């Protein structure tokens, strides 16, 4: 999500809360025998406040599970998640008296909390900048989960295009899919010389098709945009102009496949941090609850 003007109230609210917490902490730490720590009354208040912020931040995923619930807009929850989650870290540090956990459980909690906060900040930055980058760099952006299916469709489409020229056999499924995609236009086989046919078949089978078949472009020179352009220029020079529209379509398919690969990479970066952030957050909430019960009891 974009961190824009709509975050300003949350930003100022967080600053005010943090300032109050800091103003309370300074005399509290100075006058408390043995310094600030979690077991004092104010320390417990900090702990409860910090844990409440963490629970609120954790409820975002629950809110997303039930989008129809009338509990405020998800974007509002998201802003709350971002800012309350962020200030929960200094509040918990006030709670612990800036100790990084002296017990085993508290040490692990602080470590996990730090990782959660750092990964969350990284995620917020990525969510702020990467969607714009993706829009610019991936005009053919599609639904991430559908990319493997669309890659197959691109392969079938390319097979049909090449078959139009070379007369090679194409599966009916591919034909139907491609026909559907091209608005039901019936394709015709061009009358081509054998050397031309062989040239196109060699290029397609050796360079283009392996690239379209696999996920990503590992080991395929055509995956590189510059190399791809050079290769398609060479193909065009060796083929008659009547075949050039087919070559242009193949180049377009290749570009779309390249963008889908790029989208996959960007998607992994954009959402990869969640693989750390979400599980560790849940583990932290569980450990925090155990810590709270034990600390209040003992």
């Amino acid at each position: 999500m974009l961190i824009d003007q709509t975050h300003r109230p949350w930003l100022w609210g967080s600053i005010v809360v943090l300032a109050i917490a800091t103003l309370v902490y300074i005399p509290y730490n100075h006058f408390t025998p043995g310094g600030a720590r979690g077991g004092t009354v104010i320390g417990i208040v900090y702990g409860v406040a910090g844990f409440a912020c963490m629970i609120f931040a954790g409820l975002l995923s629950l809110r997303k599970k039930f989008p129809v619930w009338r509990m405020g807009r998800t974007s509002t929850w998201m802003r709350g998640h971002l800012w309350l989650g962020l200030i929960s870290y200094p509040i918990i540090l006030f709670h612990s008296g800036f100790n990084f956990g002296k017990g085993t459980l508290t040490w692990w909690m602080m470590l996990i909390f730090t990782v959660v906060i750092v990964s969350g900040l990284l995620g917020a930055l990525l969510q702020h900048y990467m969607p714009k980058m993706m829009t610019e760099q991936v005009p053919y952006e599609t639904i991430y989960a559908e990319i493997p299916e669309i890659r197959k469709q691109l392969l079938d489409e390319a097979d049909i295009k090449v078959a139009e020229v070379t007369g090679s056999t194409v599966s009916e499924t591919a034909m139907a899919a491609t026909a559907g995609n091209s608005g039901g236009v019936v394709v015709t086989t061009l009358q081509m010389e054998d050397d031309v046919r062989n040239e196109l078949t060699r290029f397609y089978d050796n360079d283009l098709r392996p690239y379209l078949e696999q996920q990503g472009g590992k080991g395929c020179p055509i995956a590189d945009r510059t190399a791809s352009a050079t290769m398609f220029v060479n193909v065009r020079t060796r083929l008659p102009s009547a075949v050039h529209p087919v070559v242009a379509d193949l180049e377009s398919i290749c570009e779309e496949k390249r963008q889908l690969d790029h989208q996959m990479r960007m998607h992994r970066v954009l959402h990869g941090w969640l693989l750390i952030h979400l599980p560790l957050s849940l583990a932290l909430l569980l450990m925090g609850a155990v810590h709270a019960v034990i600390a209040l009891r003992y």
Partner: protein
Amino acid sequence: MAGRKRTAKSLGQRHDFNYFKRWGRWRSTRTFLMIAFPAIAGFWLLGFALHRDAEPFATGPLSTSHSFTGKRCETCHLPVLNAGFLKVGFRRHVTDSACLSCHQAPAHQALQTFTPSCASCHIEHVGSQHLRQTADETCVQCHGDLKVRSGSPHYQVAIYNFDTRHPEFAPLRGGFRDPGTIKLNHAVHMRAGLLGPRSQPVQMQCQDCHRTPADQVAPWKYGQPRVVDTVLRQQATLQPDAPHNPGMPGEPIRPSAGRAYMAAPTYASACQNCHALQFDGHFSDSVPHDKPQVVHDFIVSRLNEYIRQHPEAVHESPRPVRVMFGGTISRTPQTARIAHSAEEWVRFHTEDAENLLWHKTCQQCHTLTYRQSDQNGLMGLPDVAPSNIKPVWLPSAVFSHYAHTSINCQSCHTKTITSQETSDVLIPSITICQQCHNGRPIKLGQSENGCFLCHQYHDWKQHREPFIPSHSIDQLRGANGQPDSAPAKELGVAVSEMFLR
């Protein structure tokens, strides 16, 4: 041959609109991790719980002095509420009664308005080495604005820390004078070339006179062992290891034992070698350093013994003597009196010896007063003023010279070398201490200066009650505690091994 068309319709037709219902690899991985991580954390904690190991749940490690209780939290964390024999209540905070079941803790002051709980000063589970090292704030919460239940405080009412708001030591405030009556001139004694035993020049050191009780019986480098040893041995026999039970061995000997404070210098250990108490030319030995009556009896006894062994001495022509009046020697020698009998000889010599002792030798150091007076204003045996040497100047504080062994005496006792009067108070000023003890918190180059370093909260001087222990080793260490159920223990061990090893 048709070219590629990318219309919204054609693009839309490429998608499966139920794609979000499918579980792709990304979604599956994320869900798996969201279950796995909390599960690992949960099993990890469950393993400890089933294994009855509470240590990981603690907010910090136990102090070394309590570490023997191990994983038995209930040794200290007892239920706060007791309903008869039934212990109820969710909270199990450590109460004072739990501490007092093992420890003695005398009260601080009878007039204190507030008594903090044990755990508020001795903070556990922060990994401290010594729980006695309490934070300054625990003291300042009262001494920052001291109030008492009745009357006015006897002590400074606002003390915050040793660095800034601690008053100068009481004997150095308000013209306080040393109440000691021994006339000692430190400057003279520290002078180079002072005549010592056998009229040899010596350079005295502070340790020649000022020694800790543990070091007091060591021989003095300038001393004559024959003279000193007898007296010191007598002292040692008078101060057995266990004064109340001579049959018992003393406390274990530690390097610091008996080396905290300087013993008050005694005549036998510090003065005798140079300041001999000779009383008559017929004798080489000295009178005992004791009360005037004892000295008088000693002189009479020795003279009687001498005249019995040497009856011819009655007829010896006496040598002229100088008579002293209150420490002033007459300018001209007086004509000696001639004795006509042994009794008269003893009386004359006793009077001469006491004239020497009372008016010169003893008066050099002691203040003497006379209850009766003759024509010279002096008569009879004098009264010797108590020495009033203060071995401890700051009774509300503890100090150890042993801990400061590496520092030479003059570094702290700066005025000693020039002091000429007994009444000079020579303990170091607080500013001397603050040169080193300025660490708050302790850091490189700055020594600890917490209140606990010099002051004790619990008034052990007033503590007289015997302590009745209430725990057995098994209770404290858990060998005889509540047994773990076998299945739970086995499960705990299994879970622990699975997740911890």
